[in-house]
């Protein structure tokens, strides 16, 4: 069986994006996206867990019966998250100080269980890992976009404290877009998360509709033939 990796990538990042179209993982999403940096951190940590859980579950898929699959998936995911947390604390301590708050939150991310259920448990290892990577990437992109939107409107900065997460080399990312900005509190608070997410979702729908329209217009042109295309 052939796997269309381009389709998997498209699904993960846009067409079947965890947030934009599956509407999953909203709890960790809204909780941490007060700043773009936090969104990036949470996204990267989720990405690691998604890829490794896809790997393990895909390897075990012949063994697991449908009746007990959910508790088994939950066990695997929780064990991976805890291991990631412990290893980061021991070997990447500085990073753990920043991301440490987010790592345990990943267990609550139902999207990981969702991908395990709908993809990794039914497909071979390679496509599963690729799917985990793309889904994680799509999730990270949404987190950063939402975090950036809320941060710019809420505190007038972008990627504040990014050097704490990525190292001093990335301190150029830290921008103060609006000097002496007094802050727009509601955007940092959970209601702001819902508001910003609503606008982002609406924006995605608009783009999808435009794309569909131009696609159908093209098809119409092709059907009508060259003589009517000049009118």
């Amino acid at each position, binding site marked *: 069986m052939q796997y269309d990796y381009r389709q998997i990538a498209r699904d993960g990042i846009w067409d079947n994006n965890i947030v934009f179209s599956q509407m999953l993982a909203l709890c960790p999403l809204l909780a941490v996206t007060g*700043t773009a940096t936090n969104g990036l951190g949470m996204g990267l940590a989720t990405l690691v867990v998604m890829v490794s859980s896809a790997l393990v579950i895909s390897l075990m898929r012949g063994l*697991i*019966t449908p009746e*007990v699959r959910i508790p088994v998936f939950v*066990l*695997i995911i929780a064990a991976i998250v805890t291991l990631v947390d*412990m290893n980061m604390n021991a070997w990447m301590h500085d990073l753990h100080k920043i991301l440490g708050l987010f790592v345990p939150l990943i267990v609550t991310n139902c999207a990981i269980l969702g991908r395990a259920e709908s993809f990794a448990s039914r497909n071979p290892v390679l496509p599963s890992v690729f799917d985990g990577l793309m889904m994680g990437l799509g999730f990270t992109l949404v987190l950063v976009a939402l975090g950036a939107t809320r941060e710019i409107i809420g505190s007038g900065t972008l990627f504040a404290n990014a050097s704490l997460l990525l190292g001093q080399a990335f301190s150029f990312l830290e921008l103060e877009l609006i000097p002496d900005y007094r802050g727009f509190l509601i955007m940092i*608070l959970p209601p702001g998360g819902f508001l910003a997410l609503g606008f982002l979702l609406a924006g995605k729908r608009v783009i999808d509709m435009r794309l569909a329209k131009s696609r159908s217009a093209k098809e119409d042109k092709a059907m009508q033939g060259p003589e009517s295309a000049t009118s």
Partner: protein
Amino acid sequence: MTAVVEPSYRKRVGYQGGLLGMFATLAAALLVGGNVATYDAIEQRKAEDLQHSLAQVIPDGIHDNNLLDDRLVLKHQEKEVVVYRGLTGNSVAAVAYGVSEQGYSGEISLIMGVNRNGEILGVRIISHSETPGLGDKIEVEKDDWVYSFDGLSLEKLPEEKWAVKKDGGAFDQFSGATITPRAVVRAVRQGLILFGAHRAALLKDKSEKPVGPGIVSTTGTVEN
């Protein structure tokens, strides 16, 4: 034959139970292994963090000993508190100890350094699980807020001013997070009350046997 026929043993309850049990055992074994493999490293990092935090709340210039080496354990309100002493020669120049308070989500633990006059040399947050982006401004890396305690003492700032501005006190709250700074202010005030209650014992010279209410033990070296 095109479809894979599922063997009948997989339908049995015993197989299902066994499978679940196996995965639970496996997960437990992995976690135990992970814990064993990382325990020492994590403890090491914690000790480094502690040393680093101690150095921030007791400036290098005012003591000449290793802060981790001169410890004192005292009992305050039913709890044992470890006090790290900064010594110049034989006399105590400053002390540092941890205090903790319930924050918005979980315990906030912090360490504070106090000089002989009961003035705060510095306060640093050791660990907390406050909301990222809101309550985490108590961390020195993210905001200057914790510096607002420096130099204060219970004599300099009247009791009712030890609160956030919203409650009529002297300290800023954060937009969107009042509970967190409130908890930190309360913790620091408690810490100063602790200092006041045990002042004589805390400031006794190193060579003298520290006796007094609450002293549990002293250590010359860190036992690990």
